[in-house]
């Protein structure tokens, strides 16, 4: 079989990633890195929670759990046992734009990994009993990550309020009532629709020979037919024109605040400059909001900023834990003052260069371990269409100017474009009076 090389690019020092494609549409990104006798084998599917329907949220994530179950060739539990016997590990993750499955294996066991992944892509067996067992696991996961976790709850509320139309508005883990209602026919339909070679990219990083890998993949995948994928739809989120706020009591000691400013998708021209803004605001010990909130005013015990790496419009998020004796309104006042200051007076070149230096360190850190390297390649290929954007993003960040930062701050950091979720301490119950 002759593979067509589609693209190649460096993936760290001395490592080159190369993309190939099978006739059925399966993409393969191979990056040979022989530092250690291990491989990271990841299979990325272009399906995430954004592809779900109202009333059936959580499908992609529940399905991810089910992918470790019985297949036509493997009894229940065999998948994990076969991997663990080698010393390897398996796991998976689902998010808004993708689902990926990862195997970390000793290099000699790469053929096993390819066989297992091909098997479960096409021959998964979905029966009521294991589906119900896994549904219970997922409901417990939701309790642990959302219902009993204030940060998880804040995150869920933020997305539900910030997005009114776009499917980013529902949680990837799904609403509890939806998880409980997902039907077996729908689950089987989901599998047939999305788990196809033309909706997948295999990413392999580590100690292997490229030609042997390609032969192995061809032998297991070439015969799998492409599927008729649903037409890609894009749900435009209406422009937000008013601030949105919600508050709720939680069993916590002090207010927790999560703010989300509407932001562009990761491939948009303004993304790198906004990433620099996030760093300047709360991405390092000398960051503006950290200094104002935590050090100068002592109004917060922690503040973090994150620009979510979504394909479609995303959020620049600020997460703040208020300090004892202070509250969310005070914190928001300080944030507003800092945003106004940033808009009125752009940062210095030194400040921007600082954020770019930190971005450079982050870039290299993401490429240290083979799992991390594979994840970076897989995310950019699946969410943004091209693994080469890993390096292009690093270059774009390095080119951000003071003017870019000023421009995006003015455009995006405005109250009308933000959503705020506040968790407040529950009122303490009055102590029972004792009868005399």
């Amino acid at each position, binding site marked *: 079989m002759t593979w067509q090389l589609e693209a190649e690019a460096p993936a760290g020092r001395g490592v080159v990633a190369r993309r190939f494609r099978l006739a059925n549409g399966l993409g393969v990104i191979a990056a040979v890195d022989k530092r250690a006798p291990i491989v990271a084998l990841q299979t990325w599917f272009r399906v995430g929670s954004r592809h779900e329907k109202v009333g059936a949220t959580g499908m992609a994530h529940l399905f991810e759990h089910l992918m470790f179950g019985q297949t036509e060739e493997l009894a229940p539990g065999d998948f994990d046992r076969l991997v663990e016997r080698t010393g390897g590990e398996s796991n998976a993750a689902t998010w808004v734009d993708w689902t990926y499955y990862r195997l970390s294996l000793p290099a000699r066991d790469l053929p096993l990994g390819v066989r297992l992944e091909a098997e479960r892509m096409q021959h998964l067996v979905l029966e009521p009993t294991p589906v119900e067992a896994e549904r219970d696991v997922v409901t417990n996961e939701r309790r642990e990550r959302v219902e009993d976790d204030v940060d998880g709850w804040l995150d869920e509320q933020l997305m539900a309020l910030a997005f009114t139309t776009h499917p980013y508005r529902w949680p990837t883990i799904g609403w509890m009532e939806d998880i409980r209602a997902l039907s077996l026919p729908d689950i089987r339909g989901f599998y047939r629709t999305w788990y196809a070679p033309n909706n997948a990219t295999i990413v392999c990083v580590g100690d292997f020979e490229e030609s042997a890998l390609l032969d192995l993949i061809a032998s297991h995948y070439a015969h799998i037919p492409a599927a008729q994928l649903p037409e890609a739809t894009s749900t435009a989120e209406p422009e937000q024109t008013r601030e949105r706020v919600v508050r709720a009591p939680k069993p916590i*000691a002090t207010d927790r605040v999560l703010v989300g400013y509407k932001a562009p998708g990761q491939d948009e021209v303004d993304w790198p400059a906004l990433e620099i803004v996030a760093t300047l605001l709360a991405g390092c010990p000398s960051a503006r909001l950290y200094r104002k909130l935590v050090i100068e005013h002592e109004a917060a015990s922690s503040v973090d900023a994150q620009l979510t790496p979504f394909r479609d419009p995303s959020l620049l998020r600020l997460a703040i834990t208020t300090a004892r004796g202070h509250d969310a309104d005070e914190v928001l006042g300080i944030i507003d003052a800092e945003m106004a200051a940033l808009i009125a007076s752009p940062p210095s070149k030194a400040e921007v260069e600082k954020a770019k230096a930190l971005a450079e360190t982050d870039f290299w850190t993401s490429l240290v371990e083979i799992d991390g390297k594979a994840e970076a390649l897989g995310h950019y290929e699946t969410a943004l269409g091209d693994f080469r954007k890993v390096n292009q993003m690093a270059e774009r960040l390095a080119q951000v100017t003071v003017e870019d930062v000023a421009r995006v701050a003015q455009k995006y950091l405005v109250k009308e474009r933000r959503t705020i979720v506040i968790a407040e301490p529950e009122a303490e119950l009055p102590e029972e009076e004792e009868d005399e």
Partner: protein
Amino acid sequence: MIIVEPSPDTPLVWFDIAIRGGASADPRGVEGLHRHAAMLARRGAGSRDRAQLDDVLDGLGAAIDVGVSRDSVSISGLALSRHLDEVIALAADMLAAPRYDEDEHARLLRETPQVLDEVRDDDSALATRWFDWVCAPGHAYGRTSLGTEASLAAIDRTAAAELWRREVVADNLIIGVAGDVDETRAHALAARLTERLPKTPRPPVVATSGVVESRGRRAILVDKQDRTQAQLRIGHLGMRYGEPDTAAIAIAEAVFGGMFSSRLMQEIRVKRGWSYGAGCGLRRSRLPHWFEIWMAAGIDVAAPAVALALELFADFAANGPTDDEVDFARSYLIGSMPFHVATARQRMQLAVRDAVFDLPPGFTANLPASFPTLSADDVRAACRRQLRPDDAVTVAVTTAETARDALAACGAGALTVVDHDEY
């Protein structure tokens, strides 16, 4: 002691400086002192105050963080190799000339109780905090490294500075360097880190301890409102990592709760769906530490989950793993070691940790070599020696109103209910 792992794969360099001692050596009633001393050293050193230090580090794209474990204080750094000299100079200042500003000291004393708030807001962290405290009363590792409101009030800036002067001597440091640096340069940088430090012998590490032997099962319910789950910890004071039974217990751990295929994961999660995860392990430390089981069960099944875990634990302690289970775990543990030593940073950090625990060089990385020499009977005998389910302490962070009665009757021993913010 200097550990070097060169690797030109990226233009990054990591360094870890471990100062032997740690939170277990906090004076009684002054828990949190080592953490406080370490944090203060980061907040101003040499000619730079905190803000200046932060500005320089961030401008270089670098980071220096401090941490404290029961056995050591750590100063960890990350730098682009072209800026390494400058970052090492800053770390050297933290070691030799921390400023211990009065303002920063007072500020940190105001901040730390709020870290306690965050721990109490996080059910898993709260369960660990309580378990550490109640598992083996009096044990050095049972005392909080963060502190309590009362112990923080007892922290004196002079005492923190004196602790730093006493413990930060060249002979008491373990320095690890990994990444885009060669052996010669790494040794030169390590010399810069220690050149201004006293050359006196390292002080003895005195872990403040006085274990009250805990016999029989008991349970603590840490009451928190509106929980839908129970964060559960079950365990007892175990052996020291590095003792002769270490390899056998590593196999036992894997079988009982160290893999997805383990007994706990299969019984609790896979068969019953009671928890997202379930596992177990012996804590790795310089002294004997806990053997611990963990899971987070729905509140309505918390009591059956505890009962089942104790039943499984009792069976495992008495009968140990089967021959097949030992073979499987051996294969898993031998095959998985390359993942733990794949990068220079991982190898360096593993070696530093072994040194902090006073273990021979290469102890953990070479552990898999012992596994083939052990028979299944050896592992079973180690289980009988080292696992004590009849003395297990159970901690449940959950809502007492819903869970108390069932937990009191599930076989975990006498139940005490405490408020979640009591400690």
